[in-house]
């Protein structure tokens, strides 16, 4: 192999097509988003750990946690985590359906994929509204 590569006439071997070859499609984009949300949730578990540790550490630690969650960054993280969690869950359900060999023809898979996206966004907005009202709403 090394001798071949060192030679002046290197043979061009066919490569399997990679991501940039394909036109972006919804199912493909949602597959990528599924992995990205999974990776985000991996670090997002720190948020749950912080919440539980703060709750068991005492009122001061809990007040710090609540203060952070009340800031703009905290709210963006919380809403982002919620969306990632719900999107990954709905995407996971879609994959489980596909694992049973159902919903795989063109129209069905597009519908399933679009449903997970619309579903996760709708549920997140709904939960954000409930959370906002639980925090006291407009004051």
């Amino acid at each position: 192999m090394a001798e071949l590569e060192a030679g002046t006439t290197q043979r061009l071997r066919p490569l399997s097509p990679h991501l940039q070859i394909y036109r972006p499609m919804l199912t493909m984009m949602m597959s990528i988003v599924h992995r990205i949300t999974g990776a985000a949730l991996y670090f997002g578990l720190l948020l749950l750990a912080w919440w539980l540790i703060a709750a068991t550490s005492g009122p001061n630690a809990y007040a710090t946690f609540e203060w952070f969650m009340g800031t703009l960054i905290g709210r963006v993280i919380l809403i982002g985590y919620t969306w990632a969690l719900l999107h990954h869950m709905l995407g996971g359900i879609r994959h489980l359906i596909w694992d049973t060999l159902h919903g795989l023809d063109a129209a069905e898979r597009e519908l399933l994929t679009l449903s997970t996206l619309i579903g996760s966004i709708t549920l997140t907005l709904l939960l954000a509204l409930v959370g906002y009202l639980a925090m006291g709403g407009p004051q």
Partner: protein
Amino acid sequence: MSAPLHMRTPMRRVRGLGAAHAGTGHFWHQRITSVAGVPLTIALVLIVIALIGRSHATVGQTLGSPLIAILILLFIINSAYHMWIGMQEIILDYVHDDRWKLPALIANTFYVVVVAFAAGYAILKLSFGV
């Protein structure tokens, strides 16, 4: 085409091996934990939404009550294993250099164990009230 009764390949049953010398174990475990993850995630979201804006005392008492604590503990254990497999898969997909791959795989295990243990410890401490 009828759905297979099991997800293990004939080769796995014959030799107990695959390309990773571990068969399809992780593939199967990832699906089992995803099935369990659906009700546990719904439970966690409902618990969190019910506790937003509540006082520290109320939150501590609720999180420490048996049913809630068990649900959250199950969520933590299930998610930890699921995300450990998931991150390992991501590392194996993108990190090809052994000098980075091995430390990354070890870091994955350490991170998951530490976060799951910390969160699990906190919920048990709330439950037992010590």
